[in-house]
């Protein structure tokens, strides 16, 4: 017999990244710019604190919401970095990565048929998570010309009477887009006017370049009470494998999210929670060191890509560049680059239809690897140009 899979699950397409990963897996000597996680190991002082906690036998369950001590650390950190005051014991929930927190928030907020708006290209999980929560995913396209920022007018035009939630992710994976406070104020005004809840995934907010600062939409007047602030330690602290994220939101929503979390997950792993305390309380210097390194690599990779004629703006945040390709679709470009030069990049369409015409290159990879990748890519682009002079 064949087991019938639920319709709403069966209809979700496989992640474009996964398809691509499976091809790369079969090849040797690939230089990968396709990796969406830091190439640094978690800073030693954080690993060491986790080892110490293990030695003391801290291996049990924690409170569903997360260790009270961690929630206080989160509350302090979010206050210090974002100017946002959350009550640690009722307005903070520790999740298994931001991905789980996104799922919890969507499931806690949506009734079947409610619409969720999000800007695209975007992280691969947004649309499927909305669908799994029985919501309707509504993408708002953004463009390279606009620096992949979300325009308030585009948001306004996409809103219908069923619109409930707006999901934001700045700095953005995969484009590296950021929003100025003035841009965010316009978005906030639209959200207040149309009574939207905002879920803001600010996982890359420490990785801001050129001396810029990050503003959270939750810090704007009238926004905190309608915003779910989502963050975690994965990217800035190089802690992807520890699986620790968190949500800060009004207590009633945190309580609703906790109901789902306690039955589905129980709690985030205590080892990760202990490590996250060390990261948030004493990790600033480690983050700054990595941030600086990313900034230099960003200069290198954008300089190289623009020199070879792949138009790309210099991202002000995160660790991705999203150059424009020519002559081929994103997918053809990525597949040929992989088979002819053994360089892995991710086709822009993995991040939504509006990613067509672009590829994502991660600079969370050592400089030596980036150098080799850029040399190989330059050769490929030169060949492509001679084959398709129209480009």
């Amino acid at each position, binding site marked *: 017999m064949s087991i019938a899979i639920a319709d709403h699950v069966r209809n979700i397409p496989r992640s474009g990244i996964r398809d691509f990963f499976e091809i790369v897996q079969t090849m040797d000597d690939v230089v990968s710019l396709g990796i969406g*996680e830091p190439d640094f190991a978690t800073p030693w002082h954080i690993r060491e604190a986790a080892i110490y906690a293990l030695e003391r036998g801290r291996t049990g369950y924690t409170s569903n919401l997360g260790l009270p001590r961690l929630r206080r650390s989160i509350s302090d950190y979010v206050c210090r970095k974002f100017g946002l005051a959350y009550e640690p014991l009722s307005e903070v929930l520790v999740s298994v990565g931001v991905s789980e927190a996104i799922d919890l928030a969507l499931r806690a907020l949506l009734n079947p048929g409610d619409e969720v708006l999000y800007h695209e290209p975007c992280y691969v999980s947004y649309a499927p998570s909305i669908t799994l929560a029985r919501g309707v995913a509504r993408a708002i396209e953004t463009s390279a010309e606009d620096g992949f920022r979300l325009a308030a007018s585009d948001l306004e035009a996409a809103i219908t009477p069923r619109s409930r939630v707006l999901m934001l992710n700045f700095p953005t994976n995969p484009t590296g887009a950021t929003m100025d406070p003035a841009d965010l104020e316009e978005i906030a005004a639209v959200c207040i006017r149309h009574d939207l809840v905002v879920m803001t995934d600010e996982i890359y907010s420490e990785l801001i370049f050129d001396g810029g600062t990050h503003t959270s939409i939750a810090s704007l007047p009238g926004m905190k009470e309608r915003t779910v602030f989502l963050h975690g330690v994965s990217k800035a602290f190089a802690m992807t494998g520890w699986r620790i994220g968190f949500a800060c939101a009004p207590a009633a929503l945190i309580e609703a999210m906790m109901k789902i979390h306690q039955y589905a997950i129980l709690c985030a792993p205590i080892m990760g929670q202990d490590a996250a305390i060390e990261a948030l309380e004493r990790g600033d210097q480690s983050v700054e060191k990595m941030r600086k390194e990313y900034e230099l690599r960003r200069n*290198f990779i954008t300089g190289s890509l623009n020199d070879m004629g792949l138009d790309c703006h210099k991202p002000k945040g995160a660790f991705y560049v999203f150059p424009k390709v020519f002559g081929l679709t994103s997918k053809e470009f990525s597949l040929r680059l992989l088979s002819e030069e053994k360089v892995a990049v991710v086709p822009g369409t993995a991040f939504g239809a509006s990613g067509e015409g672009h590829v994502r290159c991660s600079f969370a990879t050592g400089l030596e690897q980036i150098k080799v990748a850029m040399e190989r890519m330059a050769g490929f682009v030169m060949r492509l140009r001679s084959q398709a002079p129209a480009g």
Partner: protein
Amino acid sequence: MDDLIDLLQQNALMPRPDMARLLGLDVDAVNSAIAKLEADGVVLGYQAIINREKWDADKVTAIIEVKITPERDGGFDRVAARIAKFEEVQSCYLLSGGYDLLIVIEAANLRTAAAFVAEKLSTIDAVQATATHFRLKTYKENGTFHHFAAAADRLAVSP
């Protein structure tokens, strides 16, 4: 400038065009910035980090604590300079705490190291006492690991 100094400290041999691209500058600008750092005495020199187990393994490194009587006019500086000028002395620091100078010496073998301490260092008038520690093994030097190699596999492509 900070970023350039960081790059030089990590790897002074990095090709200048790479440095330029990382810093978003042109090669001429990087060359002249380095020339200025050298001329201003900010960058004093460039050295290789040698793994002593693979090269010149007989060479002895000793770390010596030195207690000295400061001089009325010169303070610690004149005595320190006098000690630092011996070619065995690789590094010399003035410290707070239980003793005054910490010096690192390299010598061809144990005998010459001992001779340096007994005949040169201890006989200086201002030197009251010394305590010599011999290096047994180097784990990390100037930020570079000698022994552990850390490698972690990441997924080849991830979201």
